[in-house]
């Protein structure tokens, strides 16, 4: 995910040498259009049709049913819960990402590569296992189970559990965008700022932050998209309490399993709109970075 952003910067010079149209250098028009057709058919079957079908199914029974589906109290509770989770998880992971990238890219120390690998670890773990580990820690039979019960603190099957499981799953997003970017930028600008007498904080806000703002935003929207959509991990720790611990994806699952397809797809269409907005912002950022 990081690669297109950094590489595109250097690759904007495309080499167009020689106007000779030789088949030794270029495929025939037949091959070209065959490959384009294959790509478009493949993308239609696996990406475009699913996306279109979501909106068609959602609006199948008319606008009134659609509005009713997304303003149903359980749906609204799910939307509210998902937004709450986003507002907690995304800022915390963003701060972590910035701090980790600062430590890793501005200083040299032993074990740096191990640390980078460890930060990436959640990407290699199944979301279901991400949920499981928090049941093992905070569940009734878990390590802290008794203590939590005695002190009447609920983590699993409540908001804190959903937040922490989502945090685990989306942990690497911001850090892994910033680390390669800040590595490329080096430390000379920060050194100049500090040696001219600026404080560390001032240097960060006036020198580093403007340099990394697009990379940061890029990481933020990817983290945000995954936070909104996380299903497996949240499914394990949420307990599926309707109107209480159901996030939007879990609400969709319940509706779908109850054969309320129109309602399920109505809520799904809201999430699809968010996904499309995410992709548009992502492309704007890539375009901006390429421009600089």
């Amino acid at each position, binding site marked *: 995910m990081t690669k297109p952003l950094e590489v595109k910067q250097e690759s904007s010079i495309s080499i167009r040498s020689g106007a000779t149209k030789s088949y030794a250098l270029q495929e025939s028009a037949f091959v070209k259009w065959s490959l384009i057709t294959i790509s478009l058919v493949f993308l239609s079957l696996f990406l475009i049709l699913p996306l279109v079908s979501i909106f068609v199914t959602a609006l199948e029974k008319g606008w009134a049913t659609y509005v009713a589906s997304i303003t149903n109290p359980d749906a609204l509770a799910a939307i509210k819960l998902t937004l709450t989770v986003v507002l907690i998880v995304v800022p915390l992971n963003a701060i972590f990402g910035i701090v980790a990238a600062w430590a890793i890219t501005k200083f040299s120390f032993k074990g740096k590569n191990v640390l980078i690998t460890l930060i990436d670890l959640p990407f290699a773990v199944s979301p279901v296992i991400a949920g499981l580990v928090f049941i093992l820690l905070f569940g009734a039979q878990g390590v802290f189970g008794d203590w939590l019960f005695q002190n009447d603190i609920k983590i699993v099957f409540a908001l804190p559990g959903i937040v922490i499981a989502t945090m*685990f799953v989306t942990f690497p997003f911001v850090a892994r965008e910033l680390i390669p970017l800040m590595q490329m930028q080096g430390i000379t600008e920060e050194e100049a700022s*500090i040696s001219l007498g600026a404080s560390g904080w001032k240097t960060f806000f006036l020198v580093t932050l403007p340099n990394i703002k697009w990379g940061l935003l890029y990481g933020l929207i990817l983290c945000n998209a995954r936070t909104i959509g996380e299903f*497996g991990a949240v499914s*394990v720790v949420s307990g599926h309490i309707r109107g209480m611990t159901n996030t939007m994806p879990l609400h969709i699952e319940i509706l779908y399993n109850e054969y309320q397809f129109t309602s399920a797809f109505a809520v799904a269409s809201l999430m699809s709109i968010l996904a499309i907005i995410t992709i548009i912002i992502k492309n704007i950022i890539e375009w901006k970075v390429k421009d600089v």
Partner: protein
Amino acid sequence: MELTLKKRKRNTIIPGFSLTLGYTMLYLSVIVLLPLSMVFFNTLSLSWSELWETIAHPRAVASYKLSFGTALAAGLINVVFGTIIAWVLVRYQFPGKRIVDGLVDLPFALPTAVAGIALATLYSPNGWIGQFFDFKIAFTPIGIVIALIFIGLPFVVRTVQPVLQNLSREIEEASASLGATRLQTFTKVIFPELLPAIITGFSLAFARSLGEYGSVVFIAGNMPMKTEITPLIIMTKLEQYDYVGATAIATVMLVTSFALLLLINIIQWYTNRKFNVQ
């Protein structure tokens, strides 16, 4: 001269080293490392025979085969079509290209559960696509492969695309001027350059597919021994409060994933080294 340079690097004037590294380690330990270590600790409490009985249970073994086989099939399909799509996006101009390029990221942005219900509906026997096939797609292993193709495609396209973009045209010109046909130039000159990226993309998609849950459960049918993926076994055990069993299966999955991660890193390290030598 070299000595002083080294010294200066170590005593950097940039502040915040212990603060930022300390915070990173603390946060990493609390959110990721400590929770993950629970899986291994809990597994240690099992006796060897108990552990073996759980992880070698026929239903579990069937799920490993299914998860592995479908992830492999989806990965290979994505390698072929993902490379073609990357090629088309880098080398050709056609109307709507920018939209197609953006759309490739859809699986990263769309919630897996949303993708799951959409694919299950499309490929079900009376769905838009499913109706054209004589055999069942949804609720069979083919359905699982379809969900995993969806999930894995951007990994392949987005790793191959930048490499293709940075490939210098001169080597192709050299190849052509030495008398190679276009096909020879592709197979002998371009493809070897793309191979490390293709392998990395495949491994990333494969690793993601092994653990994928949300998009698969809706289309899989979830029949024990037939269409039950390994993450679903963990889920089922958890719903039955069989935490020990769930943890044992999770250990198998984690060890596999970590081995894969190591392999990916080795490939990348090897590729980087090759690149640096040049």
